[in-house]
């Protein structure tokens, strides 16, 4: 039995909210011991000297798009897995907006089989809430739960028929399944590629009011109250929606919410001269909204940060802004990009990893995300300061659509461990 001891690390414990010098002993796939002594003596253990770098629970990324099945030219499980490993993401929670949609237990099995063969990190699939993500009939939630679906969502295809959604949520509640919504008033936001306001008007882009997100959230929260379903909002990106979310949490509803790395670090002005790599869904918001979202992460109103990794080929981005595909890849860039918030003093590292690792794990009922004995040894070792210029063609992802190409970033993943095994750098 191999034992690995990571010595001389700065341990980030998101549960305790602390950073302390120490060492971690991994064996049998789990964390055996967390030492306060940075260089303890453990006979027979293979030593990894962290050299004062940070060691944190690996990232659990909810809402990753992999192109299998249907769009393997954009991303396969293998490339997504490699990208994840090099970005410190140890668990990817995949989206069901595949082609065709992941809406049957058979499709779930295909994903689990492919993922286990090809990806070096944990892959947990989400399933569609309605058949074909068409918003008309609910899927076989029970069968798919048995087949390993971790949550149910129609992704950005909002269920417009509230009766269908109410029934699906009620049924999901009876099974204890988690429903993930995309809070957006679908008719108001149809065709929009920017957020209403001065910038959208100057650029002449079709835009949606930030209020559409609040309206979508209002409806979903009312349904949570009505059905008792466990609910997670995929991305909260506006100040108005943050306020509504805080109120719902204050009332004790079983709700949680995420936001994206892009909405935390970019605003609408970054689109500049119609740069389509900055086109994401929902569209980038104002700087005031960005700050409100950062504050919501800091205060815990927003629980989870995700990359919403969305690989797109070059052709689909080489179109006029309105016509271009939405989404950006983020598995590899998320940690260094979010470290901007650490370097700017906006978020502390334990807070960041609470939203990246601990909270998503807790919400999905996973044992990982913790820096404590008994937890799975899914860990990321990183240098928070190392500067580099991002080159999109150096990414592991098959698709290179990142808005951070050429960006000066600080922070590099040194090693990633999944169940105690090094998965990055690949040997």
């Amino acid at each position, binding site marked *: 039995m191999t034992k690995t001891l990571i010595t001389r690390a700065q341990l980030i414990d998101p549960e305790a909210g602390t950073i302390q010098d120490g060492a971690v002993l991994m064996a049998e796939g789990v964390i055996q011991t967390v030492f306060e002594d940075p260089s303890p003596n453990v006979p027979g253990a293979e030593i990894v000297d962290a050299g004062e770098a940070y060691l944190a629970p690996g990232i659990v990324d909810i809402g990753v798009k992999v192109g299998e099945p249907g769009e393997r030219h954009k991303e396969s499980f293998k490339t997504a897995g490699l990208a994840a490993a090099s970005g410190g993401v140890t668990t990817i929670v995949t989206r069901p907006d595949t082609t065709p949609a992941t809406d049957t237990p058979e499709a779930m099995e295909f994903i689990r089989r492919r993922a286990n063969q090809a990806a070096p990190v944990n892959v947990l699939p989400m399933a569609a809430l309605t058949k074909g993500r068409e918003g008309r009939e609910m899927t076989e939630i029970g069968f798919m739960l048995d087949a390993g679906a971790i949550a149910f969502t129609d992704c950005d295809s909002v269920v417009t028929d509230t009766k269908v959604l109410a029934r699906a949520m009620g049924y999901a509640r009876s099974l204890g399944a988690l429903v993930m919504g995309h809070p957006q008033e679908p008719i108001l936001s149809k065709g929009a590629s920017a957020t209403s306001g001065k910038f959208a008007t100057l*650029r002449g882009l079709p835009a949606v009011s930030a209020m559409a997100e609040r309206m979508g959230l209002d409806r979903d929260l009312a349904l949570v109250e009505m059905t008792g379903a466990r609910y997670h909002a995929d991305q909260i990106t506006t100040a108005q929606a943050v306020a509504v979310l805080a109120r719902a949490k204050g009332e004790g509803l079983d709700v949680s919410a995420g936001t994206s790395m892009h909405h935390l670090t970019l605003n609408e002005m970054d689109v500049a001269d119609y740069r389509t790599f900055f086109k994401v869904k929902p569209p980038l918001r104002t700087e005031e909204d960005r700050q409100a979202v950062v504050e919501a992460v800091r205060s815990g109103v927003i629980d989870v940060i995700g990359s919403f990794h969305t690989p797109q080929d070059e052709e689909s981005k080489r179109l006029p802004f*309105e016509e271009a595909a939405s989404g950006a890849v983020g598995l590899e860039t998320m940690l260094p990009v979010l470290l901007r918030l650490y370097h700017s003093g906006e978020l502390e590292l334990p807070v960041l990893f609470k939203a990246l690792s601990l909270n998503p794990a807790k919400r999905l009922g996973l044992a990982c995300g913790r820096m404590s004995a008994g937890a799975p040894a899914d860990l990321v070792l990183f240098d928070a300061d190392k500067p580099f210029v991002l080159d999109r063609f150096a990414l592991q992802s098959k698709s290179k659509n990142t808005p951070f190409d050429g960006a000066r970033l600080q922070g590099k993943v040194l090693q990633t461990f999944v169940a105690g095994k090094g998965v990055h750098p690949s040997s």
Partner: protein
Amino acid sequence: MRFDHRHLLGIEPLRPDEITTILDLADQYVSFNRRRDKHAKALAGLTQINMFFENSTRTQASFELAGKRLGADVMNMAMQASSIKKGETLIDTAMTLNAMHPDLLVVRHPHSGAVDQLAQKVNCAVLNAGDGRHEHPTQALLDALTIRRAKGRLHRLNIAICGDIAHSRVARSNLLLLHKMENRIRLVGPSTLMPSGIDAFGVEVYEDMAEGLKDVDVVMMLRLQRERMDGGFIPSEREYYHRYGLDAEKLSHAKPDAIVMHPGPMNRGVEIDGTLADDINRSVIQDQVEMGVAVRMAVMDLLARNLRARPTEVMA
């Protein structure tokens, strides 16, 4: 006199002195165009391609005439039927164009920003002839020249822009230009046709025509697109005409010597009364068309000078 631009993509990047430079030169071309012999050589030897991804008879004709009078070889490419439908990317289009070695490219496109995106990839000077709801810079320049010639100045004027501001690139470009030249701008129209974030533009917004037109020097009417007329943005054509259509009564609130402008083509009886549009004492709509050719000649002349000043790129 300076005009340091490779392209004319919008009014946004222009400085006030550059706008004046264009208008001064355009003034000369107005006189030139009124001569019997209308042949100049400013663009001699250069190839101008007019690429219209969206139908336009007037603007395309104006650019074509401007190019021909300056001696360019002008070619028109009607794009709406061909490649755009086949899913060709903007980059593909740019590559195809580069292989033809044009010097001036005039582009109209139904999507905002498409002309900017194309300009980033082609080797020639690009003129934006209107992109989506974004900008239509030559229209704003010809409007500015019309105003300057009618009013004797292009600053400290009260100017009302009326109608469908939200969907209008003409309104965007005019707003930017008139703002840069330090005029007082009013936007008049129903709230459904006002763009978002308009409070941040330093303009006054009116929903009532009589109030909005009070004591203005210039009334700019905008075309209301047919597809916006029924139910979606306004209740009906006749209610719109009643509340926002420019007629003698509404115009009486403006200064007695206020001029009436319209970018054309007009919907008589929808946004403007037919008789008023033809009133040569108030309407400068015909002048606008004339100024259009002169302004386009001026812009192409300036861009060509910059083009010739640059060393020839990779002649393989």
